[in-house]
């Protein structure tokens, strides 16, 4: 695998739901070690792309490669092993579990031997898994929530926990679905710093986001979808001038 | 919990659970027998005391009861358990502990086999039904063809339907037309009766608890099928004709107790009626289990007398063995139900053949099994 291998490569992707074509012949690549944004109007198919890559639905045609591995036909649960993890637009944390336990579930791919499965880690004080999860929480400034039950936490906190869980899988490609939605500007700034640090550590990001400031500040490249088709690609500063993009997505009164 | 000089008997009641309707009044009969014996001075000058435990007809609770009687109460012998299911779990425990038990209702074939401490004051259904058939033949009642009807999920009923009835039909040369079966819980016997209607037998040999008999009789009437249903002790419920509400004429059964046989049974029935009424119980007529359990107390008393039991803690083991040995030897003991002997742990006693006539049980015949 050379440095030139894209982290994620999508070719000729097609998906219909009950006859409605949600994704139409979509191809794009996400280069390693950078952040790429996937933007487009509501219902354009962004989340669907994530779902197809992570294997929630089977695809109708096309191929998906992660780090050079063809994952097109892989069962969903194995895809995370090939190095791609995701967060969720509608936060999907396990509400009855504590924050720490949610993160331990996120670690699964890296602790999936039979032995790991049946080690009574909860009886072992400061077990390495717990330590690691705690540290990840500290790093995103969420340390005080470790033992709280997720269900009772405010939206913004849960949103960030979802992100931490995705990072714990040890994947080098992270797909983040609207990570800044529901955060206020100062929290968005904190998130931006956090993501930048992740990129600096070598991770590749594919971000769906409607906050253009945010996209602008971390993504070098954007892919624009409309009706499941790619209508533009390139640096945001260029793409946002594209009349098609303005009409479909940004609107005229933006700034 | 024992005052020396008392003879302790354990009593497993089925005061709750599936058998209450048959077993609920047994306690009155036991108390009556004990009072009578103690009033006459007890046994070997010692009073009998009964320790009671409700098993709810559940084999697990019955085992607990037996453990308690054997270990905690130092009982000499145990009255009960009631049902065959309970016997299957308590006889092995009793055998290991070396304590006699005697059931008042269990009638599944062969349960005492292999147990020296296990007794039943009941008669095997096969023997009972044999006498019913003999009676029908000797009275020249119509018996040109026969069929069986039985519940499949109950030991006694199933063996009646699949083994006893066919064998008896053969023995009394009644051509068998076939059989129908049902589940214990079945309330709708229309498919079975539709089949019986096609077979049109003179007699239907029934293996079922009382509910099945009632439902079958009603459905036979509804579909307009005339046939004589015959059955054994399991449906010997004094209230059965009333419960069939006009159906079930000519239903014929064998039982080990009938109130109108002699002065003794009449006196017992009168006293029983008095006590049940006082206790506010709806059924005031004793059933066969009431009589059987009453006799069990007398049988134990007799065995304790003959075995000269001491009733003290140090003699407990030998007392229990003595009771066992005396029971096994017992011949023609004159009891309420008639003359009782034991053969292989099961009682041998007279059988009364009863028939429903005009919505009432009437005595058709009295027979002694050979």
């Amino acid at each position: 695998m050379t440095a030139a291998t894209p982290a994620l490569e999508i070719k000729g992707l097609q998906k219909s739901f009950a006859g409605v074509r949600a994704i139409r012949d979509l191809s794009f690549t996400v280069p390693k070690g950078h952040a790429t944004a996937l933007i487009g109007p509501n219902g354009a198919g962004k989340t669907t792309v994530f779902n197809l890559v992570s294997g929630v639905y089977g695809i109708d045609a096309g191929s998906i490669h992660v780090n050079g591995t063809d994952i097109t036909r892989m069962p969903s649960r194995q895809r995370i092993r090939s190095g791609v993890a995701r967060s969720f637009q509608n936060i999907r944390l396990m509400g009855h579990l504590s924050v720490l336990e949610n993160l331990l579930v996120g670690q699964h791919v890296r602790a999936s031997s039979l032995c790991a499965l049946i080690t009574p880690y909860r009886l072992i004080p400061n077990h390495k898994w717990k330590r690691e999860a705690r540290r990840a929480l500290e790093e995103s400034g969420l340390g005080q929530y470790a033992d709280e039950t997720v269900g009772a936490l405010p939206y913004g906190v849960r949103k960030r926990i979802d992100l931490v869980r995705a990072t714990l899988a040890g994947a080098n490609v992270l797909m983040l679905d609207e990570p800044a939605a529901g955060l206020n500007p100062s929290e968005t700034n904190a998130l931006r710093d956090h993501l930048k640090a992740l990129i600096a550590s070598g991770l590749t990001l594919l971000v769906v986001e409607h906050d253009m400031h945010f996209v602008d500040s971390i993504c070098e490249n954007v892919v624009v979808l409309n009706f499941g088709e790619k209508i533009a690609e390139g640096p945001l500063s260029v793409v946002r001038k594209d009349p098609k993009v303005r009409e479909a997505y940004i609107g005229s009164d933006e700034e | 919990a024992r005052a020396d000089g008392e003879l302790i008997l354990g009593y497993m009641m089925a005061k709750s659970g599936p058998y209450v309707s048959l077993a609920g009044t047994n306690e009155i009969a036991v108390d009556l027998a004990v009072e009578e014996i103690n009033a006459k001075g007890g046994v070997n000058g010692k009073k009998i005391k009964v320790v009671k435990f409700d098993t709810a007809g559940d084999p697990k609770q019955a085992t607990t009861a037996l453990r308690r009687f054997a270990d905690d109460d130092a009982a000499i012998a145990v009255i009960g358990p009631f049902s065959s299911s309970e016997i299957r779990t308590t006889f092995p425990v009793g055998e290991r502990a070396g304590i006699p038990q005697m059931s008042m209702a269990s009638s599944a074939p062969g349960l005492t086999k292999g147990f020296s401490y296990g007794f039943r004051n009941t008669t095997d259904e096969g023997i009972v039904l044999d006498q019913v058939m003999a009676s029908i033949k000797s009275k020249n009642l119509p018996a040109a063809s026969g069929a069986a009807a039985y519940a499949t999920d109950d030991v006694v009923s199933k063996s009646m339907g699949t083994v006893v009835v066919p064998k008896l039909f053969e023995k009394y040369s009644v051509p068998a037309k076939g059989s129908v079966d049902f589940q214990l819980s079945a309330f709708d016997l229309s498919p079975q009766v539709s089949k019986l209607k096609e077979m049109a037998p003179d007699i239907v040999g029934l293996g079922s608890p009382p509910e099945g008999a009632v439902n079958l009789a009603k459905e036979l009437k509804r579909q307009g099928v005339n046939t004589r249903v015959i059955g054994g002790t399991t449906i010997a419920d004094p209230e059965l004709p009333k419960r069939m509400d006009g159906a079930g004429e000519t239903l014929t059964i064998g039982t080990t107790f009938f109130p109108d046989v002699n002065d003794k049974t009449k006196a017992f029935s009168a006293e029983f009626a008095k006590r049940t009424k006082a206790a506010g119980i709806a059924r005031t007529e004793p059933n066969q289990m009431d009589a059987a359990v009453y006799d069990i107390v007398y049988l134990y008393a007799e065995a304790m007398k003959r075995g000269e039991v001491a009733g003290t803690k140090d003699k407990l083991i030998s007392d229990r063995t003595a009771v066992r040995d005396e029971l096994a030897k017992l011949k023609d003991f004159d009891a309420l139900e008639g003359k009782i002997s034991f053969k292989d742990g099961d009682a041998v006693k007279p059988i009364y053949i009863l028939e429903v006539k005009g919505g009432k049980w009437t005595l058709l015949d009295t027979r002694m099994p050979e």
Partner: protein
Amino acid sequence: MALLEVSAIEVNYGRVTALSGVDLTVNEGEIVTVLGANGAGKSTLLRAILGAVPLKAGGIRFSGADITRAPTHSRIASGLVLVPEGRRILISLSVEENLQLGAHMRTDTTRVKAEIDAIYQRFPNLAERRHMLASCLSGGEQQMLAIGRAMLAKPRLMMLDEPSLGLSPLFVSKLFDLIKELNRDGLSILLVEQNTGKALGVAHQATVLELGRVVMAGDPKALAADPRLQQAYLGEGTPSH
């Protein structure tokens, strides 16, 4: 005239105090916005007004009547409605049924039909999917459905909990246009938003919550200029590259 008056309310979740001594007034025909960081208690405030969480102390009056003890459904019947956080679309009902549900208290069925059509016109994404299960909708489409559903209740005061969440920039603009339009037509609005700039832009009054208490309140223009607010919520403190 005050339509909604919240006075000194206190709300606890078990041992956690989510709101304490919060006052808020929404006058007839006004847009009021509530701002605050995550966990400040904004959603709790809206839920308390609707009666979905019990009050520890304080009182609430709506259009002159004391509703402090009134059950949720009667508050809604009297003209309150909430577009809840997290949309709370009913995924086993179709899009159309979700909309009809919004009007479940109304008896003027023909008007409702016409209004549903108007909503389809406003949100074409929904029109195309009217007979599909609502679970199929994209995040933004679900948000549209939640707003449409609330409009169909014909409220006098509409409470919106982060309505722009997940909407594209184009749609966010449309949403704020809609808010202004509804307000022009006489609807009073209580708006919780993270899009602080836009919210202050449309509001007649603003309140800032911090850790369950009101820390600032008043004219939105003045607040927008307040350096404390700029620092905390407008993100001007750390300029992006």
